């Protein structure tokens, strides 16, 4: 049970990586659960303001389900063009 996690922009720099494979701990079934789990390990996620999340390239809320093989991306609010 693992997911591919991506980071963008300032969060990518703060994490020091753009992607990693994360084993989903038992009981973690949502994007919010994954975020909390990662926040326990990384200050960059713990202190990120207005963190956005996408699952399989769709913007979702923190209650969105996360399952084995999903692509989960965390990033700051967009500031395009």
């Amino acid at each position: 049970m693992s997911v591919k996690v991506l980071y963008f922009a300032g969060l990518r720099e703060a994490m020091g990586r753009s992607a990693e494979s994360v084993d989903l701990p038992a009981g973690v079934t949502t994007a919010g659960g994954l975020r909390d789990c990662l926040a326990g390990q990384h200050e960059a996620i713990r202190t990120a303001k207005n963190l956005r999340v996408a699952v399989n390239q769709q913007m979702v809320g923190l209650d969105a389900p996360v399952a084995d093989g999903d692509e989960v991306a965390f990033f700051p609010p967009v500031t395009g063009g």
Partner: protein
Amino acid sequence: MTVSVQETDFDCGAEVAVLSAGDDEAGAVASFVGLVRGGEILAMTLEHYPGMTEQALQKIVDQARQRWEVRRVRVIHRVGRLAPGDQIVFVGVSSRHRGDAFAACEFIMDYLKTQAPFWKKEETPSGGRWVDARESDEDAARRWSGGN
């Protein structure tokens, strides 16, 4: 191809020409070019989420097509390092009438600035910093949502 995210520059005139080429019904082409402003900025770097960003742009285009009578649409957004004066974004819309072309073009730009996954890092004399989301952009996008 409607949507492109690319490092290379674009040719506004060529893109506008393609929007009406061979289409007798296209009486109006509205287009927009966004450029890097100077001032205190030495350069900026634009980052995107490959795959998701293109999908988001296509979705914005689809929404514009539902709202207005639009014939052809072209969206080009550059990524990578850009200097003041460089072109960042092109949006062009052809339609039978100018009202639809203007509205769809401005709609796409407003959404693109707020909804599409792009992140901007500015280089200033005092170093680089990631830009925070601006409230005025979110206001601009919000005014379109009344009719939804």
